[in-house]
């Protein structure tokens, strides 16, 4: 299950830069980001809080929250094989794609649902606005089916419930059924389980995997949990301070990590694929992205840092088929 099998791309990010214009200064959240997601694969992005995972996922449908802006680069979406650049589309064209072809599942289901409307209403309106059902009546029927599919207990009753009447897990199931309602081509799940307790997390991940398989969806999953990565993904991109530092098939990352940050990350969390005696934290803290370190952004925390790392930014190079690393150690 690695790169070459998935030849047909669904989305291609090319040389993307996203900056946030804040009062404190310009936060260079994403720089020099390029990657491709292929049709039918499960693509994962891991990294610490604040490394730009969520921003990247929002950039795919060109919906970066204010004061952020895509300042440079392309997001090519292959719409029925025809490439369109999401960065250049009008707001109306983007609206038609969002929620229908590229759908999101967000991290915090409690604040993502409007408290004044029933979850049934919110599922149906998502379909009505994209003309995927003919009227509200059909929409509600479909909503019950969707809730049943995400294993919501008593779906006929639940569609009449308001968000505050549901548990956290049930709310996330509602958000997942909103994401699935228009059978999107690309489903973007941004830490879909991190606000839930562990048993519910496991159930929902299992459910997500099943749904993706049954409907042949492409999944872009964001997480900070290496265990989730190992269980869910085909390919992984490791993000550090707004840069992809390593991108490889999931087995490669766990067995043969090349970037010092990836290696550090694997030693810092329980590794599902190798026995490690003691967990070691990565020394130092994540850099301030208003004034990012020159050269390689990881060099202040890197045990292998050399002179060149402080001066020049390493390129992302392919060291073996489908395995990319951004590090001077592997650049020669």
């Amino acid at each position, binding site marked *: 299950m690695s790169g070459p099998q998935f030849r047909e791309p669904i989305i291609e990010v090319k040389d993307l830069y996203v900056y946030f214009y804040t009062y404190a200064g310009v936060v260079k959240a994403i720089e020099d980001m390029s990657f491709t997601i292929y049709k039918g694969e499960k693509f994962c992005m891991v990294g610490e809080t604040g490394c730009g995972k969520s921003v990247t996922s929002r950039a795919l449908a060109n919906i970066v929250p204010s004061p952020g802006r895509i300042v440079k680069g392309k997001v090519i979406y292959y719409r029925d094989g025809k490439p369109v650049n999401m960065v250049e589309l009008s707001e109306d064209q983007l*609206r038609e794609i969002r929620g229908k072809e590229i759908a999101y599942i*967000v991290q915090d289901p409690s*604040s993502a*649902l409007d408290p*004044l409307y029933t979850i049934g209403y919110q599922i149906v309106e*998502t379909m009505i606005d*994209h003309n995927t059902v003919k009227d509200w009546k059909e929409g509600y029927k479909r909503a019950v089916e969707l809730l049943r599919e995400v294993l919501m207990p008593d779906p006929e009753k639940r569609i009449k419930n308001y968000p505050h009447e549901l548990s956290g897990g049930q709310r996330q199931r509602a958000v997942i059924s909103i994401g699935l309602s228009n059978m999107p081509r690309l489903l973007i799940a941004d830490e879909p389980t991190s606000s839930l307790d562990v048993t519910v997390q496991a159930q929902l991940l299992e459910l997500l995997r099943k749904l993706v398989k049954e409907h042949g969806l492409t999944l872009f999953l964001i997480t900070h949990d290496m265990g989730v990565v190992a269980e869910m993904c085909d390919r992984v991109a490791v993000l550090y301070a707004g840069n992809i530092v390593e991108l490889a098939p999931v087995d490669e990352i766990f067995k043969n990590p090349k970037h010092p940050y990836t290696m550090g990350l694997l030693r810092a969390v329980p590794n599902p694929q190798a026995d490690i005696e003691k967990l070691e934290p990565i020394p130092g803290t994540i850099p301030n992205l208003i004034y990012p370190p020159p050269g390689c952004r990881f060099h202040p925390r890197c045990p292998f840092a050399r002179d060149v790392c402080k001066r020049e930014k390493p390129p992302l190079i392919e060291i073996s088929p489908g395995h990319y690393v951004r590090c001077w150690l592997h650049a020669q």
Partner: protein
Amino acid sequence: MNLMADIKRFLARRALTFIPTLIGVTFLAYIIAFAIPANPAQAWAGGIKANPQVVHEIIKEYHLNDPWYVQYYYFMKGILTNSIIDPRWGYPVMTYMLSRFPITFQLTLFALFFLIVLGIPLGIISALKKDSWIDALVRTWALVGVSVPIFWLGYIFIYIFFYQLGWINIAGIPYPKVHITGVPIIDALLSGEWNIVWENIQRFILPGFTLGFAGIGVIARLVRNSFLEAINSDFIYFARMRGLKHRRIMTHALRNALVPVVTVLGLQFGGLLGGAPITETVFSIPGMGRAMVDAIFYMDFPLLIAGTFLVAIIYVITNLIVDILYAIIDPRVRF
């Protein structure tokens, strides 16, 4: 859903809480009146030259020589059974006050109308066009509105619109021929006497605007802030991610923004009633507020307490309506 049963239970429970509120309000009003070192009986009987026999009769009739709690008891009993007679006019005080009430109600309706049709749209526009000239206008309006006294504003408006431009009328109340609710403009609307409707509008538009002036700025500011909060919330962002249409997103934002506004509109209604005496005096409108101001001048305590009682009842009922509306708008609120 058993919403109606919930509402009934809620109403019954709330009706019980009315009693202590109303007792408290009238008691305070009574104590304040009682504390004034004056001899009302003398005043009611005609002043310094009053006939001692009449003064004695009045003291007996209104229990003025009894302890305060006995006096209060007879006052309240008189108000509730409508048997206490106004010492100046000779009518039962409640009958008199209730006959004045529709006019005050009409004035408050005009003010509330301005609050809603000006305050809410101005708030939304200034939220959508943040930091524009209209936003600055609303901010200034709110500040000026709460700083400027009603009587000053009222006289300025009279000077401009009556004295200089002659656009409005400031005398008399145009009554329609039929009497259904007692509120002139509503009766005129119901019976289709359009010229009377128009005359009422001419008569009340300026006092209504004056009374509502401060509230318009306050409501606009509140709507602005709560609309901004709603539009920047996670669920609106998620609504955009879901690709909902712009109109629908705005509906979501607006409904959420209006939840706090309903509460404040209810409180404002009470504030408007409180401002009515001054507005009615400035524009010489023969309403309840005007009657209460007169009652103060003539030490007519029975009338004053009856008025306070009536205003308290209206205020409590308004709050009840607000609570019901609140629960209809926001499903998180329980009866």
